[in-house]
């Protein structure tokens, strides 16, 4: 089994799905010979040629709109948007068309589209290149939102996303792209959209997170006192998220800390916190804590680490929840 980083795992999934189904095509800004801004599509153009790996103009509304038309007419396009901030110009197409065509056509005309988007901060880039807008799209019915963190999960989830009959936004935490490797099977496998993962089991407190913050949470767990047993959940899918797994865990532990990089107000942490109190109220020993980005714009790199979630802040929230 090969040891791959996130970029390589995603590349492998794309390559295998393209090989398997000639309806799968890749398009985006410089995704061709250049291999994309983060080199995720490297080698695909050489293997599959101009017909199936398509360099586009810098025109996100046009890219996504065209991809929607392709998907409506039976292709399985996988457009890449270079940075999550560039989803802005395509927002209309995603939310007003991709997400709604199934409903408008009583299920006859669907949009099997997977939009790949690098997401989040931590690479010394400014705002628009470091944002975490997952909750915006989770709030839009008709589209699914996925954010795998590890190479293994990314491969399995991307294959699921490409084969999914509905549109999926596939967020790739760019901070993790080359910072972590693990064994990834060569053979194809899928991970169902909507299933979270227990990274480590515990009895005293549940930490729920996703994206690059997973690694800060692991660090916080490592720093926690030995007599505290913490359950760590990687959500993997943002919408529909695995509330059953969270509820089951919190009913066991009685305490919950939600950690995400995105700003706090109306972030997914608010939704999870609300659902936990709805479903686990009598099991709770402490208020649900949130550790998130601040309600400011993502700062430029000098202040980047002040904004991003770190193990210390996660550790404090864990301490407070335990001491309540």
């Amino acid at each position, binding site marked *: 089994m090969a040891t791959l980083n996130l970029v390589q795992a995603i590349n492998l999934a794309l390559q295998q799905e393209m090989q398997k189904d000639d309806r799968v095509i890749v398009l985006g800004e410089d995704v061709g010979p250049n291999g994309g801004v983060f080199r995720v599509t490297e080698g695909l153009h050489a293997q599959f040629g101009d017909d199936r790996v398509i360099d586009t103009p810098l025109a996100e509304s046009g890219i996504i709109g065209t991809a929607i038309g392709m998907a409506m007419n039976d292709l399985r396009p996988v457009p890449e948007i270079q940075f999550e901030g560039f989803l802005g110009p395509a927002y209309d197409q995603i939310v007003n068309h991709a997400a709604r065509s199934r409903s408008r056509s009583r299920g006859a005309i669907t949009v099997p589209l997977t939009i790949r988007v690098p997401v989040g901060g931590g690479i010394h880039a400014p705002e628009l290149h470091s944002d975490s807008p997952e909750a915006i799209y989770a709030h839009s019915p008709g589209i699914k939102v996925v954010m795998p963190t590890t190479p293994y999960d990314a491969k399995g989830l991307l294959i699921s996303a490409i084969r999914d009959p509905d549109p999926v936004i596939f967020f790739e935490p760019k901070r993790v792209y080359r910072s972590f490797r693990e064994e990834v099977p060569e053979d194809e496998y899928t991970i169902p959209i909507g299933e979270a993962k227990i990274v480590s089991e515990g009895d005293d407190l549940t930490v729920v997170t996703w994206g690059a913050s997973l690694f800060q949470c692991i660090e916080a767990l490592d720093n926690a006192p030995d007599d505290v047993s913490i359950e760590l959940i990687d959500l993997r899918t943002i919408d529909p998220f695995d509330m059953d797994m969270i509820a089951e865990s919190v009913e066991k532990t009685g305490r919950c800390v939600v950690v995400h990089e995105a700003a706090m107000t109306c972030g997914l942490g608010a939704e999870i916190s609300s659902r936990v109190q709805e*479903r686990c109220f009598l099991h709770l020993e402490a208020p649900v804590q949130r550790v998130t980005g601040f309600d400011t714009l993502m700062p430029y790199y000098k202040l980047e680490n002040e904004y991003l979630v770190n193990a210390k802040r996660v550790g404090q929230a864990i301490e407070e929840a335990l001491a309540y």
Partner: protein
Amino acid sequence: MPQSATASTGNSKPRLSDELSNDRLLEWLRSMQLIREFETRTMQAYQQAKIGGFCHIYSGQEACAVGTIGSVNHDDPVVLAYRDHGHALARGMDPKACMAEMFGKLEGCAKGKGGSMHMFDKPNWLFGGHGIVGAQTPLGAGLAFAARYEWEVMNKGGKKVALCYLGDGAIDQGAFFEALNLAALYSIPVIYIIENNGYSMGTAIHRHSANSENLLARGEAFGIKSVKIDGLDILNVYDQFKPLVDECRDLQRPAFVDFKTYRYQGHSMSDPQKYRTKEEVDQFKEKDSIANLLGHLMNERDAINEDSWKAMRKEIQEEVREAVQFAENATDPDIEELYTDVYANPQPNLSPTAEYKHGAKNPLL
């Protein structure tokens, strides 16, 4: 075609439309009159509050939908803006399904979920009306791209051409420029038909679009073949549009059409129409496309007379009356419809009635 010699009269030059049979033209006449009658009854139903939301009437522009759709194959994809009832009918949608859709009934083409602006009909290769101005234009490029890809890369089926309709208001949208660039860059067989009725809602074209006298320059700027068509005479539409379709299909490349037309009603049902005079509307009504074709069929082809025209109109009235009746009697959607067809498979938390409820596991509830 045997009729070509007899159909053209006097000193006029032979036209492509001379080759169209009387039957075909009678079918077009019927189709245009069906749209006109359908829209009249739609307005009534809207005024009786049987149709919800917003409603955009196509009367006056019939020669565009019927003439252009009549120039392509049934499996050529079509995508529309929101003034879409006429195209849906021209494409073969049952008037009952179209009317029931506007009434919000289950038997509508989209289970009454889309309403007036979202006519979808997959068996008729109709990929929907779309409510965001200009946003359907990249979709048209994508539909045509997929069609070309199937033919060229997957060796499946023949050459197709997609029709993407937009109004003159949509030409100012950024998405349209992106779509034109992509269509030209990749040589995508999509024909952008600007149904230029002279108004972007209530703003005249010279007040909403720069260089509006020369819209063709916009297509030509991208190296796209661009044609201006007088859209009030359906024979002329065919004469000019059919060769364009053949060329786009054959060479697998896009085209841009400035299609001059006129709408008799307001932008939507709630338009006070302060931006134009009644005289202006009447001027265009004198050049009415249905009257035009009828005159041709009566006087130059002897294919219809007053009696048979009256009979045709009566039959259409009856058909549309039945459609309204059908829509009246059709089924109101069940509350379960709130969460069908949102995703292929039901997701948690879609339904107020299905098994998932907020707090369902809370022992206090």
